[in-house]
């Protein structure tokens, strides 16, 4: 029977390949690190670059001999932006794959949903989502014991923008935000911090994440004559806002985008409309622009070079959060091995970690380790970012 023969030969081939592969990777054992990202679904713009980044980083670490001679074994699950799937994935990583630590999830809501799991199983979790609530237990007023996060909080971006406005002598502002978790969280921070910087919010407009046109909202804002507009969203809508802003001849009102604007794709998609838009960005977005003596110059330039060479697409700052999380965990593994409690202690006391998005100084009271210095104000000039001093 030919079918039988073919299947036998195929099986032998698979074994042979397996043997070959196992001989190439001459590692003694491995460190397992779990990752849960929203690779597909509504938040794929976060999860996709994160997954690509950590895969690239793990490859690089293993090519350089692994961690203490052991292979860094990355197990990545896709939660599809779904809280239930995310929860199951984290449990699976802990109980079945028996990983040393978990990185991710990509979304704030999902991260909040898996905090109880990490706390219960006493496993270090380094989230790649922004909300400050991930590292702030409202009951105790302290961070959760086993949970860390690498992205800057919204409040840091808000403060960076407000500080810049204040220096320019602007205090009459309008807010336009998307009705997703990201937009709602940014909006509430903008409103919360406004009194501290003496900001007078004259309009507070919203739009849906799949809306086609924001002319109506911007026209309303135009009627209230603010001196600056702060737009808080991610995805294609922020490009539409930028275009509508220019079409309506509102360039006399400075447009500030949130750090969610941090991809050159957005400048390109805006087709010239983004000229003059301000935006607070982490160092990883603007690697080429950083002065040579900037502490993050070399890590960010390396990342940019490797990522664009490997995947042939523009770098997204979200991938940088994955880089920071995996690098932090692998540094911990290098110095304390696969001991969950020790990894936790190591990260909590880590100082001066040079990441893609800032200089991290963790402490028992701060499981994010960043300050608003992690944001630089940039302006869009000639279809690229330029530093604003």
């Amino acid at each position, binding site marked *: 029977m030919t079918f039988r023969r073919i299947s036998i030969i195929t099986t032998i081939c698979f074994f042979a390949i397996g043997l070959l592969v196992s001989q190439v990777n001459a590692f003694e054992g491995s460190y397992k690190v779990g990752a849960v990202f929203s690779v597909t679904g509504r938040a794929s713009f976060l999860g996709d670059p994160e997954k690509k980044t950590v895969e690239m980083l793990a490859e690089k670490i293993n090519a350089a001999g692994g961690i203490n001679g052991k292979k860094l074994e990355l197990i990545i699950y896709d939660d599809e932006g779904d809280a239930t799937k995310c929860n199951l994935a984290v449990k699976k990583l802990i109980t079945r794959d028996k990983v040393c630590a978990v990185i991710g999830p990509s979304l704030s809501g999902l991260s909040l949903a898996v905090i109880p799991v990490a706390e219960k199983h006493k496993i270090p979790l380094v989230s790649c989502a922004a909300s400050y609530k991930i590292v702030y237990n409202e009951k105790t007023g302290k961070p959760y014991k086993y949970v860390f996060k690498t992205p800057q909080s919204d409040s840091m971006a808000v403060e960076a923008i407000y500080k810049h406005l204040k220096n320019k002598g602007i205090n009459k502002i309008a807010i336009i935000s998307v009705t997703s978790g990201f937009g709602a969280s940014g909006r509430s921070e903008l409103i919360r911090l406004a009194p501290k910087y003496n900001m007078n919010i004259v309009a507070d407009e919203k739009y849906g994440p*799949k809306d086609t046109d924001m002319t*109506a909202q911007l026209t309303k804002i135009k009627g209230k004559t603010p001196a600056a507009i702060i737009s808080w969203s991610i995805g294609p809508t922020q*490009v*539409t806002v930028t275009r509508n802003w220019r079409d309506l001849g509102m360039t006399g009102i400075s447009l500030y985008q949130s750090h969610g604007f941090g991809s050159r794709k957005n400048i390109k998609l805006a087709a010239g409309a983004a000229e003059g838009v301000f935006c607070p960005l982490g160092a990883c977005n603007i690697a080429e622009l950083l002065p040579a003596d900037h502490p993050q110059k070399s890590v960010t330039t390396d990342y940019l070079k490797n990522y664009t060479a490997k995947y042939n697409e523009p770098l997204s700052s979200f991938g940088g959060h994955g880089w920071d999380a995996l690098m932090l965990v692998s540094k911990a593994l290098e110095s304390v091995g696969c001991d969950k409690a020790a990894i936790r202690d190591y990260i909590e006391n880590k100082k001066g970690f040079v990441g893609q998005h800032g200089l991290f100084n963790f402490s028992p009271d701060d499981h994010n380790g960043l300050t608003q210095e992690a944001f630089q104000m940039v302006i869009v000039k000639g279809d690229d970012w330029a530093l604003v001093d």
Partner: protein
Amino acid sequence: MEKITLASQLLQYLITGLTVGSVYAMVAVGFNIIYNVTEIINFAQGEFVMLGGLTMVSLHVAMGLPIILAFPVTIVLVTVIGILIDRFAICPIRRPSVLTLIIATIAVSIIIKGTASFIWGKNPFDLPAFSGRNPINILGAVVQPQYFWVIGFLVITAIALSIFFDRTIIGKAMRACADNANAASLVGINVKKMILLSFALSAAIGAVAGIAITPISLMEYDRGAMLAVKGFGAVILGGLGSFPGAILGGLIIGSIESFGAGLVHSGYKDAFALIVLLVILFFKPSGLLGNIEISRIKRF
């Protein structure tokens, strides 16, 4: 920064609302064409819009075809997809009930969305506006040239369809299927062919809507569902099965959204449209231009 007068603001809201509403209207017309012949709601209607936009991006931006050529090619390609949907998802179902057919269209929409995310990736794409991006000032309101294209496409679609359904024999045959499929087949109309044609037509209209809206709002693989929901709202508002109703419904929903966002509160703009929809259904359950007698004899 000069101040904008209230009159200009209102005009701006109206123009924006009519533009967005035109797209809803085109989606709604697509719903109706299929509904009239088959009595099913095609949940993949929004995907035609997405496919139209993204195929145009590929042909015009990536492959460099001129607009005048890329436009018909896109419509033909999406029409072919509409035909394939009928051949492979609707036609083969044995003993079709309306519900199974509707579920089949949901499956189709998931497949199309997944395939599109493989082909184009998950990033939004831009299409250059047909007549540039220099806005025109009309009485203080700012109008993108593309807005005229969108509204113009709706007008052309409406005229072409009314000629097709009133003046051509195929169009009349389709209307006969809509009135009574059994009687239509008794007088020699091939109902299966008419169903095929209805999918082809509504795919083509969806593609036109997608091509028209992409220069304004960009297009990405999962935009279809939202447009389908808004278009469906327009269908219900105008009366299921009525073409003038679909167009009116689309324009009303678009305008309510725009005026609601501008004059009251943008956070509730989707709610305004739904409230108006509910109120109208409360007083006229068949929709603005729908006929309650016809909807009684329909299975769905």
